[in-house]
Each structure stands twice: as C-alpha cells, then as structure tokens.
C-alpha cells in the first residue's frame, strides 16, 4: 500500500528545507559581504595595484553562470582531493558569487561620491581610512542600501541552484517530495509560495528604502 501524505507533512518538510535556504542565503550574504568589502577597500585604496584584479574578479563571477560556479566548486575541490560537504561547496560558490556583485554595487556607490569629498578629507590631514570611514562611507551607504537589499533577493533565488550539487534546500526538497507524493503541483506551488514569502518582504523593504533615500537626497 502506498503511504499517504497529508498537506501538513508536505508543508512541514518544505518549511524545514526553507530554513536551509535561509541559512545558505545568510552564509552567502555575510560571507559575500565580508569578501566584497575587502575587495572594495583594496580597490579604492590602491586603484593602480588592485584595479585590474578587482575587474577580472568581478567579470569572472558576473560573466559566468552561477550553476557553473557551483559545479566547479563542487567537483573542483574534489579534484584536488579535498572532500567537503555540500555546505562548504555551496557556501563557497555562493559567497564568491555574492562578493563579486556586492563589491561592484558598492564600488559604484563609492565612485558616485564627488572627488572633492576625498580631497577635503585629505586636506584636513585625515588618513585614507578616516576619509573612507567618516566622510565617504556614510554618504555611500545611503545610496548602497536599496540595491544591496534588492540583491539579497537574487541571492535567495540563487540558492535554488545549489540543488544541482545535492544540497537539499527548498527546490531540491520540493523535487524529492513531489517524487514520493505524486502531487507535483501542490508541492511546487507551496515551494513557490515559500520563496515568495521570503523574497517579497525584502523587495518591499528595498523599494521603501529607495524611496526614503531619494527623499533625503531630493
């Protein structure tokens, strides 16, 4: 006899997988934020030295599919005999991917601050770090928050691709549950709803912040 699955069973399992999606997204976002910030600071501090490295890095991760990056991180590490869990492979690939996008978003925001602000700071004998921290970053941050929050949505949806290397996040869990319950429509509708519940509030926040910063800057 075939086991019977109630909708509650389906939902419970999907919510658990959704938690993994959230966790993976957080890893990507925090890890990517840190790496992206280091890249950005290096690039702004010494453009002649780090400029081209920065550009190549960004182009590499923006110019290739995330799917391929996940495969490379999964099989690549194994190729060098490094046995790692899917958490590490997926976390690594998503961190690097996120860092490239965030670094480029933030670089644009820093570049939009007039050169005169740096020069005024320098003339007052502030060091590079002080110019960045007290003069440029507070102004750049205001501009950076809406696109940064908006990109978080991309990252959450991007984690769905981690299913291809066997990470049992929301999409893969949905696939597996659909296979055993023979209720693909119900399952994937629920999966979609869960993604929506994660992403929509973030999109709303991004839009709200965008309006607010526009209001501040008029």
């Amino acid at each position: 006899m075939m086991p019977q699955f109630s909708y509650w069973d389906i939902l419970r399992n999907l919510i658990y997988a959704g938690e993994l999606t959230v966790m993976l997204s957080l890893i990507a976002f925090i890890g990517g934020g840190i790496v992206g910030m280091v890249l950005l600071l290096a690039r702004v501090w010494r453009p002649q030295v780090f400029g081209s490295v920065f550009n190549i890095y960004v182009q590499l991760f923006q110019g290739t599919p995330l799917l391929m990056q996940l495969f490379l991180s999964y099989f690549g590490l194994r190729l060098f005999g490094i046995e790692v869990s899917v958490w590490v492979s997926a976390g690594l690939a998503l961190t690097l991917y996120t860092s490239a996008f965030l670094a480029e978003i933030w670089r644009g925001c820093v570049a939009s601050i007039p050169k005169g602000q740096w020069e005024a700071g320098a003339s007052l004998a502030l060091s590079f770090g002080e110019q960045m921290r007290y003069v440029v970053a507070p102004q750049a941050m205001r501009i950076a928050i809406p696109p940064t929050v908006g990109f978080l949505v991309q990252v959450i949806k991007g984690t769905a691709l981690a299913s291809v290397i066997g990470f049992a996040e929301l999409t893969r869990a949905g696939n597996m549950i659909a296979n055993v319950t023979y209720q693909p429509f119900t399952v994937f509708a629920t999966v979609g709803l869960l993604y929506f519940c994660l992403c929509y509030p973030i999109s709303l926040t991004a839009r709200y912040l965008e309006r607010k910063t526009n209001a501040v800057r008029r």
Partner: protein
Amino acid sequence: MPSAAEATAPHKRIVDINALRKSYGDNEVLKGIDLHVRPGEVVAIIGKSGSGKSTLLRCINGLEEFQDGGLVVDGKPLLYDNASAMRALRQSVGMIFQSFNLFPHLSVGRNIMLAPSLVKKRDKTAARVQAEALLERVGLEDKFDAMPEQLSGGQQQRVAIARALAMDPKVLLCDEITSALDPELVGEVLGVVEGLAKEGMTLLMVTHEMRFARKVSDRVVFMHQGRVHEMGPPAELFGNPQTAELRQFLSSLQE
C-alpha cells in the same frame, strides 16, 4: 617692508618650492616653479585658465604628485610614500576649495570638529568650544547645528574656512574660493579672508578678483604656461607690467 635678503633667507621661508615640475602623462603642466613665501605673507596667484595655478596649489598639500623638484612647508618636506610625514605636512596646510566641499552628512559644527578630533585627538568639549569660536569668527555663531545644504554658498564657504582653521594651519591655500558664489555673496567671504590676512595668516590664493588681490596681497605671482612669468608687489605688477603676456592678460580682464 623686509629687505630682499631677509625675504629669501631659507629659515624665514614657510613655503619653499624649488624647481618643481609636474606632468600629466606627456603634458608638462608646471615647468620648474620656484616660489618662496615668508610667514605671514599674502601671495595672490593670477593667470590665464590652464596656466597651472590650481595644480601648483594642489602640489603644496600633496593632492597632486609632482615628478621633479622639492617642496618644503614649515620645515616639513613633502614625501608621498611616507604617510606620517604627509599627515604632518597637511596639518600645516589648510585648503579651501571653489566648490566648498563641506561634508553634507554632518552638521556645520561636526564638519569643523571632525579633523581636530581625529587627527589632533582633541577631546569633544575642547573641539566644540573651538568650533563655536571659529564660527563666531566667520560670523556664523548661530549655525552650529545647521546642515550644510541649509546654508547659502557664502555661508558654506565661511564654514569651510572655519573648518580649515580648526587644524591651526600655518598656511592657507585658497583656489578661486569665490568663483562659485553669486556676486552679492562674494564680499562676505573676501571679508573673512582679509581679516585672516590682517591677523598674519600666510595665504596663497588663486583669484580672479584683481581688486581684492591688489588690496590684500603683499605679492602677486603671474603664471603663464606652467611658469612663474612675472612676480612682484601688486602696485608694480598691476601698474607697470613688464612682459607682453601679463599686459595682455590684464587688458583681457578690462573687457
């Protein structure tokens, strides 16, 4: 008036520029500048657009890197790759910009307090007392908590002057500081600068306000094609220009 010998004695120089050369790529913009400034001297720099006036000022506080020659301010040589030497030199040199460059996210008071707190480690109360005194000096004692965008251009520029003075500079560089202002606001800013000159501040100012240069400066430097083309007391330079280039420049201003 000090004698010529006194004026050039090295220990009496606060700004000492020797054979300074600066290029952007292949374009040599400063072609060997020699300029020696005494403490308390007010030097006006005039010249056509593109003659290198701004570049010269920006070399003095290290905003531009030059390729050849030497520059010493208040006994501190300019060394680009030495961060602490750079910081020391920049504490002796204040700069005021055409476009004010106030920090828009900070109140007027915090604009003035920022650098002394960070660089001179001045404590909050001391920095605040000083900022209030400086605002009073530039006639803006009631604007401590205002944001820069709430001020007129003339007021912003006076805040910028107060901000530069908060670092107790020995030399103040002014690059066309009234060019972005509506005509009716020019006077209030020039009034502050004139006050500084009277109090003995060393000033190097690039200006198109010839009447002001004539009235306030001890010496006028005419730059032409990256060189100091002619130099002298304002009465001589304006009254009896020696070179054709300066005569042409001065007559172009009459129109």
